[in-house]
C-alpha cells in the first residue's frame, strides 16, 4: 500500500480580520490525485501556497514526504521544492524568456545537466504537451490554453514527486478544459506523480480526481469520491452542482 506523501494537520490562516483556513486537515497518499473543490475565495489556493512555503500558516503543521515544511531552513525547503511542481492559475511563464528558456531555466539553475541533456529534456517535455512547434515562441505569442500547456511542461520537466495545480482550467473553454484535464491525467499516469489540484471546475475534477475534498468557509465540508459528492443531499453541495450553477459556469 502506498504511503502518505502529504499530511496537513489543523491548518489555520487569516489575512487581517479575515479567516481563510480554519482548521484544515488532509492526507494524500503516493500516486493519488486529490481534487480540492470550493467556491472562489474559500482558501483553496492559500492552502496550496502554504504547502510550498509561499505563505506561512498561523497555526498547524504541513509535512511533505515526512519533512515538516514549516520548520525547515530555506536551503532544505529549496531542496524539497526541486521535487514539487506547481502550475499557477495564469501559468506564470517568464515574459522575458522564450518557451525554450522558460523550460530550461529550472534545469540550468538547479541541476548539473549538460546543454545536450537540457535540450533533450525541454524537447521531450514539450512533446508530452504537444507543443514542440512552439519551442522558440515568446509567451506573449501563445493562447491561454498553450500557456497552460507550457506551464505544465515547465512544472513536470524535473519529474517531481508531487504536482500542485492551482485552478488548471480556469478561463479556458470546455473543449480546452477537457484537453488540459486529460493531459494532466495522462502525465500523472506516465510519470507516476502524486497530485493536488484546486479547482471549481467539475469537468476537470471528473477527469483527474481519485478523491475529492470540498472546502467552504475555511473548513472541509466533504471528503470522498466524486460520485458520492454529486449524489449528496447537503443544500450547499446540491446548489454547487445544480444545473443553474453548472450552466452559469460551464454553459
Amino acid at each position, binding site marked *: 500500500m502506498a504511503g502518505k506523501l502529504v499530511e496537513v494537520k489543523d491548518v489555520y490562516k487569516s489575512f487581517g480580520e479575515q479567516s481563510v483556513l480554519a482548521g484544515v486537515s488532509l492526507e494524500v497518499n503516493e500516486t493519488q490525485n486529490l481534487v480540492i473543490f470550493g467556491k472562489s475565495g474559500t482558501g483553496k489556493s492559500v492552502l496550496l*501556497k502554504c504547502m*510550498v*512555503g*509561499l505563505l506561512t500558516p498561523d497555526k498547524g503543521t504541513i509535512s511533505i514526504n515526512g519533512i515538516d515544511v514549516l520548520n525547515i531552513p530555506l536551503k532544505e525547503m*529549496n*531542496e524539497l*521544492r*526541486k521535487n*514539487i511542481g*506547481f502550475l*499557477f*492559475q*495564469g501559468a*506564470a*511563464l*517568464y*515574459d522575458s524568456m522564450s518557451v525554450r528558456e522558460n523550460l530550461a*531555466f*529550472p534545469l540550468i*539553475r*538547479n541541476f548539473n545537466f549538460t546543454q545536450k541533456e537540457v535540450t533533450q529534456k525541454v524537447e521531450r517535455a514539450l512533446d508530452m504537451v504537444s507543443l514542440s512547434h512552439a519551442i522558440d515562441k515568446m509567451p506573449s505569442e501563445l493562447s491561454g490554453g498553450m500557456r497552460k500547456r507550457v506551464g505544465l511542461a515547465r512544472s513536470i520537466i524535473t519529474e517531481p514527486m508531487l504536482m500542485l495545480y492551482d485552478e488548471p482550467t480556469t478561463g479556458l473553454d470546455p473543449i480546452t478544459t477537457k484537453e488540459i484535464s486529460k493531459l494532466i491525467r495522462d502525465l500523472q499516469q506516465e510519470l507516476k506523480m502524486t497530485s493536488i489540484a484546486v479547482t471549481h471546475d467539475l469537468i476537470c475534477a471528473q477527469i483527474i480526481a481519485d478523491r475529492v475534498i470540498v472546502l467552504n468557509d475555511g473548513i472541509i465540508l466533504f471528503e470522498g469520491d466524486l460520485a458520492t459528492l454529486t449524489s449528496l443531499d447537503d443544500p450547499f453541495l446540491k446548489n454547487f452542482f445544480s444545473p443553474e450553477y453548472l450552466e452559469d459556469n460551464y454553459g
Partner: protein
Amino acid sequence: MTSDSTFEQIRKFFNIIGALSLFTHRFFMNVLKPPYEIKEISKHMYELGVKTFPIVSVTGVIIGVVLTLQSLPIMIKFGAEAFLPYMVTLSVIRELGPVLTALIFAGRVSSGIGAELGSMRVTEQIDAMEVSAIDPFRFLVVTRVIATTMILPLLTVYVDFLAIGGGFFASYISMNTTYDLYMSQVVEVVKFGDIIPGIGKTIVFGFIVGITGSFLGYTADKGTEGVGKASTTSVVYSSLLILIFDMILVQVALWLWPVN
C-alpha cells in the same frame, strides 16, 4: 481633515522609507553571495544603457548650450566672459551633469524596473521562481541594482563630455570662441577634486534608482493598479531621494575637496 490626510501621507512616506531600508539591508546581505549572475548583470547594463542613451545624449548637449546662453549676458555685464568655459565646466562636472542625468535615468529606468517587477509579482512569476527553488531576490533585484549602480557613472561621464561640447558650440556661435582656447581653459580648470565627487555621487544615485524601482515593483500589491502605482511612485521616490542625497553628498564633497 486636510491635516489628517497630510499626516497620513507623511506617515506613509516614512513607512515606505523604513521598508526600503530593510529591503536595502537584504540587498547587502545577498550581494556578495554566489552565484554572481554576471550574464544577467551584463544584460541589464546593456538594456538600461541602450534605453537611456538617446535621451541623455540630447540632455547633455542641451545642458551645455542653455547654461552658456543663460550665463553669457551676466558674464559680459561683469566683464567676465573669459571665465565662461571655467564656469560651464565646473557646473556640469560637479552638479548639473550628475544630477540631471540621474533624474532622467530615474524617470526612464526606475519606472521601468518598478513596472517590470510589479508585473512579474502580479502574474505570479516571482512566486513561480521561488517554488522552482530559485531565489528571485538575487536573480531579479540584486542584478538590476548592480547594473544601475554601474551604468549611471558611465552615462554621466558621457553626458559631461556632451555638455562641455554643447557649451563650446554655444560659445562659438555667440562669441566666436576657438576650440583650442575653449578646451585649454577646460583642461586647465578641471581638477581631480572636481571629477571624483561628481562621478562618485552618481554611484549612489544609480543605486537609489535601482533599489527604489526594485523595491516598489517587488512589493507591488496585486492587480494592474499595483503595477501602475509601482511604476509612478518609483520615479517620485527615486527622484526625491536623489535630491536629498545630493544635498548631503555636496556637503561631504565640499568638506573633502574644497573649492579653491
